[in-house]
């Protein structure tokens, strides 16, 4: 068992950490306070080339394996979740099916600009009546002549209102449930495609999240992202695990940001003549947080390694997402306690990590669903 990062990965981690510290961390507070998409930062970031992280060098990407990618996801989430969500959506979910199934023209129009940060992509699953239960998808895709006609409304779409292209999950027949799902590419400017309400969120502010409306949107055959019809669920399986582990990595990044704040405070803040870090109860909190974060880290990188090695990873990815999220929620809570009244002040950062962490509860699957799924997998269908 080889538990260390390679020398190259260590260097990558150091460079990414430093880049995030210089470019993103100083802007994190402002992004959260203004709740506006940071276009200038997005442009600068696009020029650096990280948006092509998971794609081959031939298309301008970095060809990073899942383990290396987790290093990046963790650091950018540590910097600013509001910015990270948009970036990560573009790096993976918002572009993957275009990369995987798009024609050369579609790639030229959508993928390569997205990798450069010139266009923004998103992936649309969630609807008013369906979140974790994809089989309840109501957005329909009907073949009419040579075209596909899409009708429906998607909600909670990261980057939705500002996206240049959306990979939309739609069903050819609701009665088919999970067996009727497909991915379609819908580009901005297509008649019938519009952005609806923008959500005012508790955390991850900066990312523009909202509703997308598809009203008789007509698409050519090539916009069906898939080799066959109704294979959407299978195709999703190609990245589902990575999406879950990635969510875990984001959780660890947020936890780390909060943890570092807690540590600095514990070392410097004085109460009753001593730094509060000298008190046993405070020390216990750090012992617990550090232990859980260490365990999260191992799970994240182990699961990523399994994905890289093409070993089965469904179980590990689900466990990782859940464990890392629960850890993060504990850490952001503890840190606000360590900060005392200052943990309640908008002026300081712990409250922002506290708010940001809540998205983890549903991103990548709710824990209720995951536990049911895992329990069933372990016990077997009875």
């Amino acid at each position, binding site marked *: 068992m080889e538990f260390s990062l390679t020398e190259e990965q260590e260097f990558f981690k150091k460079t990414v950490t430093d880049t995030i510290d210089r470019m993103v961390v100083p802007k994190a507070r402002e992004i959260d306070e203004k709740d506006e998409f940071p276009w200038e930062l997005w442009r600068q970031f696009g020029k650096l080339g990280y948006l092509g992280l998971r794609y081959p060098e031939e298309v301008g990407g970095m060809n990073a394996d899942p383990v290396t990618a987790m290093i990046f996801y963790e650091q950018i989430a540590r910097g600013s979740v509001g910015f990270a969500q948009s970036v990560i959506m573009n790096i993976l979910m918002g572009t993957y099916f275009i990369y995987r199934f798009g024609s050369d023209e579609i790639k030229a129009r959508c993928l390569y600009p997205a990798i450069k940060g010139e266009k923004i992509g998103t992936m649309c699953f969630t609807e008013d009546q369906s979140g974790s239960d994809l089989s309840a998808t109501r957005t329909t895709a009907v073949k009419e002549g040579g075209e596909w006609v899409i009708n429906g409304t998607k909600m909670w779409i990261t980057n939705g209102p500002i996206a240049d292209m959306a990979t939309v999950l739609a069903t050819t027949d609701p009665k088919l449930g999970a067996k009727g799902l497909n991915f379609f590419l819908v580009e901005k400017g297509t008649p019938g495609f519009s952005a609806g309400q923008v959500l005012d969120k508790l955390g991850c502010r900066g990312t523009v999240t909202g509703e997308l409306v598809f009203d008789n949107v007509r698409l050519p055959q090539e916009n069906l992202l898939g080799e066959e019809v109704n294979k959407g669920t299978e195709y999703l399986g190609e990245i589902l695990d990575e999406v879950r582990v990635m969510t875990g990595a984001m959780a660890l990044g947020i936890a780390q940001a909060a943890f570092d704040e807690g540590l600095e405070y514990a070392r*410097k*803040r*004085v109460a009753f003549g001593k730094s509060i870090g000298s008190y046993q109860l405070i020390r216990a909190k750090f012992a617990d947080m550090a232990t859980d974060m260490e365990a999260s880290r191992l799970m994240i990188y182990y699961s990523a390694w399994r994905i890289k090695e093409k070993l089965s990873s469904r179980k590990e990815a689900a466990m990782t997402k859940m464990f890392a999220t629960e850890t993060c929620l504990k850490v952001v809570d503890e840190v606000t306690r360590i900060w005392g009244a*200052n943990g309640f002040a908008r002026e300081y950062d712990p409250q922002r990590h506290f708010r940001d962490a809540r998205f983890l509860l549903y991103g990548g699957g709710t824990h209720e669903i995951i536990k049911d799924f895992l329990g069933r997998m372990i016990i077997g269908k009875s």
Partner: protein
Amino acid sequence: MDRILIFVETKGNEIKKASLELLSEGRNLAQTGRFAVEAVVIGEVAPSVKEAISLYAEKVVHIVDPLLDTYAPEGYSLALADYARISQPRMILAGATHVGRDFLPRVAVLLECGIASDVTAANWLDEPVTLVRPVYGGKVLSEVVCEEAPFLVLTRPNTFDITGPGEKAGEVVERHASLPAGSVKTRMVRREEKPRGKVDLTEADIIITGGRGLKAPENFTVLEDFAAVIGGTVGATRSVVDAKWRDQEDQVGKSGKTVSPKLYIAAGVSGAIHHIMGMDTSKVVLAINKDPNAIIFNYATYGIVGDLFEVIPAMTAELKKRLGRA
């Protein structure tokens, strides 16, 4: 008897502060009877200044050469090293000013000897001489020694007390460096002095620094008024410099200037560690902050919990009364 050479830096008719501190130390050392102290000046130096220096040392050696008329590190180092070879001092002292730190290392290479830069304490009478210099931005102090003579010591301004001059004037001699043609390739084109005429932060006795608590660049006038009454210099934290409210030259901190004034006043400064590392050796620190738990109070001698916009003007008014200045 050991010889000590003190390189004295001058500007116009003034002896620079760090040099004056060393001349005072030199006087004290000469009085022990164990040391012969000589002052060395290089290049264009006014006679009145040489006279003033001569009241501190038994000899003032003025090294001249056309190639030394303006400062250039190559020329100054050749001149000083050359005289050191002749006079065989045990140590050569200079202020750790820009000029001192710029050319004395070259002297060390010419003489193949040791140098301690930015020294903040010295036990001249120890055997060997022990010198203290801060490292890691001042987080730790290191005690260094150099066993062989000669050795060079650059002392940080505001480290030693300045005593008055003696009564007996030492000899003033001129020495021609005879630098070889082409040995000085650097040419000083011009000087651009800050139009403010204020004491530089690194030499100031009193500094008042403003942080983000000042809320806006215009509000720095509150500090400037205060500084004007007591002859202090206004400093700035990194965050206000980054916000472009104040110049880089005014920044106190690890990536700015390290200062050791007698009095340091921090107004609206939270006390980030990189700032602390730039001023922690100040003798007396007064911090004014609205937040009673501001970290700066852990590094202050005195603290006032209050609104700086009320406290500072009140102090300015009180100082005007006490010092009889309008």
